[in-house]
């Protein structure tokens, strides 16, 4: 399946994401999930970004938190709400908000 997973928290405590192995995986960082795109904890990028997936971060939620697009990890594409709608309809079939 083609699955778009929304990650909305920085300290995610559900392990489900580790176990999902869809044929195509997109991870959309929204809300406090956007910290995964920018924060370098102890110098390292978020382990989440090591997954084999396409990564997106919501620009509105980056800016709300004072996070600049220039600090976003190069693996992550910055998108807006309209882009998220297109991703859902065009690139993925199912969604999961974890």
């Amino acid at each position, binding site marked *: *399946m083609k*699955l778009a997973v929304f990650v909305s928290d920085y300290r995610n405590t*559900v*392990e*489900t994401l580790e*176990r*999902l*192995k869809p044929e195509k995986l997109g991870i959309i960082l929204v809300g406090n999930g956007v910290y995964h795109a920018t924060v370098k904890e102890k110098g390292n990028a978020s382990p989440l970004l090591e997954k084999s997936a396409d990564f997106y971060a919501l620009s509105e939620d980056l800016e709300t938190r004072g996070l600049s697009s220039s600090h976003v990890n190069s693996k992550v594409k910055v998108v807006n709400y309209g882009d998220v709608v297109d991703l859902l309809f065009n690139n993925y079939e*199912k*969604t*999961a*908000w*974890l």
Partner: protein
Amino acid sequence: MATTKLGFIVQRPPYKSENPKLALTHAIASQSVEIYLKDGDLVTADVAFVGDGVLNCLKNQKAMDIYALSSTESHLKNCLLLDLNVYVCKEDLGKLGLSENDIVMDAEEFGADMKVNVVPFDEISKMMEGMNHLLFF
């Protein structure tokens, strides 16, 4: 005539939020959805408990006695009574030191035929593949 299959995945323990309970009450609502649909159209709901979500299935929850609140145990039994497919992840039970003896496996006292399926996560993955939409709680 069409059927839409919904997969309800419960990943969190009970009582911290209403989420797990709302998962079950919404899944049960698949039994009355036809009033909104054309004849022959259907919505089915399969329920899977994974991760800490398996804690929803523990027996002997006393939420009603103590907090005057219906337990997730009772909702789980309702799911069985209404013939929903219910899956519990075997690995996650084991990881938390639990076995089939600790959880609700049937609702025979209400005359339910359905039983809880304790299955490896792989089977829950396959269930998810077969659904039209997924709802993670």
